[in-house]
């Protein structure tokens, strides 16, 4: 459903201008010598991208997704990693941020994993647009160093269509940061960690791959830990491991939700799990 909006509003005008910008810039490789002046563009302003905080993962949204992973054109998302010579991608996506929100985690992960492709998946249209605009601006502003070429975002329902994007064992890290808690009992199936979805995450994760979770809701933390512990293909990593891992450090401070919790001096609960080998098939 569309909310009625005043077509003359500043928000509408801003969104329309950004839409144009996205069309123009999204899929082009930025040539640092061609950037005029200092070439900097302003980072997008979050206030123009407000949208309801929730989206029903069970509805039939108008979504673009490939029929199968082999049909996905990654060169548009990561043009810098496309080889004209080999007519193909030099890398595959190995890190995902499911429900990436405003993209803070990816932006901090980008320089930490310069050789890995990182994909954010977000179901809310305006939030996805914000992240796209943010990445466009960052790429442009860091064109001399080719910064932020390894991150991008797509609007997707990861609960339904994750296997359309990734092959078996393709991913090394999957982040679930401050997911929607869905407090009501009967909404629990809408939670991003359930025993049935974990089997699908285990399929796209390679052996030894890691699931990272963080939340400020203790009940949800317990639920996620409980479901991951019960799942035969995951084992929990201990606190010593968490203390050493650079992603845990980034995850604690990088996301918008994380910063909000910080401001409110709330608790943050972290749990990380390793994808173990499949048992012998019986």
């Amino acid at each position, binding site marked *: 459903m569309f909310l009625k909006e005043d077509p003359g509003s500043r928000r509408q005008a801003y969104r329309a201008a950004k839409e144009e910008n996205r069309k123009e810039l999204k899929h082009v490789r930025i040539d640092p010598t061609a950037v005029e002046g200092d070439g900097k563009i302003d980072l997008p302003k979050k206030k123009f991208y407000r949208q309801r905080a929730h989206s*029903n993962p*069970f509805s*039939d949204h108008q979504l673009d997704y490939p029929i*199968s992973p082999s049909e996905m054109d990654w060169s548009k998302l990561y043009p810098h990693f496309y080889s004209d010579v080999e007519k193909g991608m030099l890398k595959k996506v190995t890190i995902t941020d499911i429900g990436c929100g405003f993209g803070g985690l990816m932006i901090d992960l980008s320089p930490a994993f310069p050789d890995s492709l990182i994909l954010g998946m977000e179901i809310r*249209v305006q939030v996805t647009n914000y992240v796209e605009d943010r990445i466009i601006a960052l790429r442009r502003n860091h064109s001399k160093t080719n910064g932020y070429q390894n991150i991008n975002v797509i609007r997707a329902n990861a609960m339904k269509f994750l*296997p359309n994007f990734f092959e*078996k064992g393709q991913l090394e890290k999957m982040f679930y940061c401050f997911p929607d808690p869905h407090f009501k009992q009967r909404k629990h199936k809408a939670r991003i960690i359930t025993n049935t979805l974990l089997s699908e995450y285990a399929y796209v994760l390679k052996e030894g791959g890691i699931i990272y979770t963080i939340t400020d809701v203790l009940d949800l933390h317990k639920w996620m830990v409980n479901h991951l512990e019960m799942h035969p*293909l995951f084992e929990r990593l201990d606190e010593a491991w968490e203390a050493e891992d650079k992603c845990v450090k980034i995850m604690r401070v990088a996301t918008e939700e994380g910063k909000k919790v910080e401001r409110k001096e709330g608790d943050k609960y972290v749990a990380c799990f390793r994808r173990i080998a499949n048992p012998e098939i019986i």
Partner: protein
Amino acid sequence: MIHPVQFLISSRDGNLLFCVIKNMIQVFKVDVKINNCSLIGEWIDEYDNKQLIKEKVEQEQMRQLAGNATKKMKTNDGSIIEQPCKEPKVPVPGPGAPPLYQYIRCLTLSDDESILVACTDSDKAAVLFKVELENANCLSLLKRQPFPKRPSAITFSADKELILADKFGDVYVTSLECPVTNMTPEPVLGHVSMLTDIAVTKDNLGKQYVLTADRDEHIKISHYPQTFIVNKWLFGHKQFVSTLCVPKWKPNFLFSGGGDDSIYSWDWQEGKLLFKFDVGELVAPYLTDFHFPPERFLLHDGTTRKELSVVKILSFEQLPYLAVIFEATKVIFILECNKSTGELTLHQKLELNSNLVSLAVAEMTNQLVVSLDDRKNGQEELIKFFKYEDGKFTEDESKNSAVSPILKSSLERNTISQVDADSIYPLYHIAQLRKRGDHYS
């Protein structure tokens, strides 16, 4: 008028016919040698779901009261006062409320044909029966296991465990012996989409797999009983999948259909699409105004965009043929499958005078049985049999003339199958699985 048979299955030899009419199962024994057909079993779902609804409402009432008690309210000056304990609202079904359905949705027979399972709408249960032909009523109730969401497809594993898929996308396993429970069971696998069909099969090494199909184009293959290990997805459908068919003569083949214009032929073990048989043009002459999308999705650009929906694909034990029916059409397609390449070709078209509702095969004796929506044709034909002779399927006239009158008179006398024209089970419900993507944000 007589209610059409909304769902039917046949025993492998074709001698037993299980028919569903509204909330009733009737079992007929067909004996062609003496041109006879007799009613040998019956079960009526008389479950009163008013009690169930009442319990649910009371539970909800308690929950709301408990919720209200914990809420605090603030006055304008900021001091906290107790929330006045409001009486929760309990919805009362008024004249416009949706009717409560008691329909039976689907039937499945175990491989040895000793157990029959039915899914009921009333309490979302799987109802299990022993099939004992020596008893006066061949159906004896074993148990009735309710599930959290409405079951949409059922099958059996090799070790006779019941595997059930529901409309919420979850799959449950229960054994025949385990007692009925009110506990919410844990699903063994799931999709975030409505499940439409389920099948269990074995690979070359004898390992079992569960195949599940959903409303979002997906066919997922999981190991069984290690259902937490996904083996693969079969990608290729662009619309919902409504039916899966694994032929006995080649268990690593799979045929699937739904909202696409093609029947898909797979080697599921290899994860390969072998062939797509385009039925769009072949079926087009049989499509009617029924097959237009709803008014608000019409393009109004002069194109006719009728949409077909595959209802069922069935195979035989030995014959390399598939029988396929499409929703609200008057034709059965017989496709021939190349047993080594999986290639499909049209072998035969069987046209009827009325729309088909349900299709069944007697796999062992190569017979087809269909139930018909003959409301417009004076109710002459409720069920029709076809036999296989000299490479072709033809109407089994001796069987039809023997069975039809008996079946009709039996149903005419029955108070459940005698209905008004407006209290008919929704016979055509598959087309509505098609996604229109009408949620934007």
